[in-house]
């Protein structure tokens, strides 16, 4: 019971760290693709994997899980998003999400194209199989992006080679202004995956405990060579596609319906049920907000990355690639 309390508190903290990070970004006028209301999927996935398993990033969200993976600390993380210099970290990655840190099990696509991330993840899983590392790879994808042909070819490879690949579908109903029902001819993505011989599960994506448990089980399944696994995590895109999106193509009711299912509310329910006091919960939240404010302030004092530095970094890379150094 104690340990359960601690675990739940930790989950709350991680969820808050993600949510409040995003809220801070919005509050100061940045334009991230948020994942407000969907954080349980990202954080739960990260927690469900073993430390040395591999997870592909997602374009949406703040990539708080990169901190869990030890890729970046909070201060630097703000700095990245602000295009400022942190203590370490990239100068020229596209967005922090695009960072690739193989040693820490973090991968993504090198472009901004939906679909390409799946192909990289498929390759990552092939690499684990070829090198017999016993590691699982989790590929995170939206519910609309699977209309791209890449997704089909990923499923096919995963199936033919029985790759250690877990596909986590973030079923948030929308892709930009397009409802999933107008985007995907398949009404149930698990049926599609099953046609390829995937094991599948449909879960409540707003309950981090369920996400974590299912990811753990799925990763263990794929690790054995039993073939790939697809998890369909039901959630909702509570925010607009991006802060530039006026988001007037869906009804207020629809959004309202989902408010009580906010993953922060769900975990709070778990905490209360486990006997954690409201005061303790509040304290976690307050501390976390404070942490964000402090880190943001620190980051804002760091020097901006100049276009010249970006150019210099990329030019010296290309020089090396072209054998001119």
């Amino acid at each position, binding site marked *: 019971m104690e340990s359960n309390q601690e675990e739940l508190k930790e989950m709350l903290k991680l969820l808050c760290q993600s949510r409040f990070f995003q809220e801070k970004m919005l509050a100061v006028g940045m334009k991230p693709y948020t994942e407000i209301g969907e954080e349980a999927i990202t954080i739960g996935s990260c927690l469900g994997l073993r430390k040395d398993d591999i997870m592909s990033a997602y374009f949406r969200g703040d990539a708080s899980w990169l901190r869990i993976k030890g890729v970046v600390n909070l201060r630097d993380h703000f700095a990245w998003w602000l295009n400022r210099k942190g203590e370490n970290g990239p100068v020229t990655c596209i967005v922090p999400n695009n960072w690739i840190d193989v040693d820490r099990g973090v991968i993504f696509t090198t472009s901004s*194209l939906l679909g390409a991330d799946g192909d990289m993840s498929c390759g990552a899983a092939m690499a684990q199989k070829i090198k017999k590392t016993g590691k699982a790879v989790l590929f995170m994808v939206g519910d*609309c992006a699977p209309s*791209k*042909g890449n997704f089909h070819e990923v499923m096919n490879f995963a199936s033919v080679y029985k790759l250690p690949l877990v596909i986590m579908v973030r079923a948030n109903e929308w892709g*930009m*202004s397009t409802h999933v029902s107008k985007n995907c001819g398949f009404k149930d993505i698990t049926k599609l995956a099953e046609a390829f011989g995937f094991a599948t599960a449909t879960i409540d994506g707003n309950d981090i405990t369920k996400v974590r448990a299912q990811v753990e089980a799925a990763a263990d399944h794929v690790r054995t060579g039993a073939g790939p696994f697809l998890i369909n995590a039901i959630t909702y895109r509570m925010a607009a596609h991006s802060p*530039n999106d006026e988001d007037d193509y869906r009804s207020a009711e629809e959004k309202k319906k989902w408010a009580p299912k906010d993953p922060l509310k769900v975990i709070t329910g778990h905490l209360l049920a486990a006997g954690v006091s409201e005061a303790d919960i509040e304290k976690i939240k307050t501390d976390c907000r404070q942490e964000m404010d402090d880190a943001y302030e620190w980051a804002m004092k760091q020097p901006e990355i100049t276009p010249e530095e970006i*150019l210099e970094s*990329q*030019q010296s890379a290309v020089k090396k690639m072209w054998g001119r150094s």
Partner: protein
Amino acid sequence: MREITFAQAINEALREEMKRDDNVYFVGEDIGQYHQGRGPCGVSTGLLAEFGEERVIETPISELEIVGSSVGTSMFGLRPVVEIMHAEFLPTCFEHIVYGGSKGGCILNAKPFPMVIRCPFGGEKQGQLIQNENVEGWFNHTPGLKVVAPSSPYHAKGLMKAAIRDDYPVLFFEHRSLYKRPGEVPEEDYVLPLCKAEIRRNGKDLSVITMGNMVRRAMEAAESLSGQGIDLEVVDLLTISPLDEETILESVEKTGRVVILHEAAKTGGIGGEIAAVIAEKGFKYLKAPVLRVAGPDVHTNFPRRKEDVIAGVQQVMNYR
């Protein structure tokens, strides 16, 4: 004359051509409701309301199929106008651009395959990290394919209308920094010729051969340099492939000096083809090396600024 923006000009071209010919339809991702109906690029306003879902077809995320199926509809006499949300996505439908109607027309005795693929490209900011690339250099090696990049609302509207009426594939690049810029556009119906460049400024000392948003930079540089007694001619390609060799060579004959200016990375950019045409057919006019002022060879956009253009011009002018 009235002024409208580049985005409005394209919107008008689409509306007028859709009215004019029932076979024209508009297809792409989120072109109906997004941004309060303005669509991702801001050119969709009112189209869905006016023409309905049958002619303003919102699609799944599926660039390959959007373009591939359009090759199919075009065989049957329809005239698809395809929006690809970002030019950076063109690799995912590359096969249907370089084969599709371009190859189809060529191998099937000039059978018509009308299709316009329009997409935003480029950007203004130095070192912006996504979705601001210049990819037109991939597309000038496809016989039969026309590639257009207008530089003003006037040209955008006239060329878009021409592209929609054309019987063969046209890849239509719209520079992101131009969408919101206004310019004079006649109220009356007009089309501008494809495959024709335009002299945007007459000059006698040096020809700046350029396109898209860089035309503005060239004009600014010309303005500045005129104070120093250097008289630039500015050639706006408009159609960047195939090249209007006649206009280019006439200009080179007149000035004898050339700067080729584009935003895209230098290596493999369209400047190579331009330089090659001049080095072969305009050699006798040349008083100095043909200089390319273009983006650095990296995966991020660093658009040339007025100062870069001026420096390039001076370098060529000072050649002995």
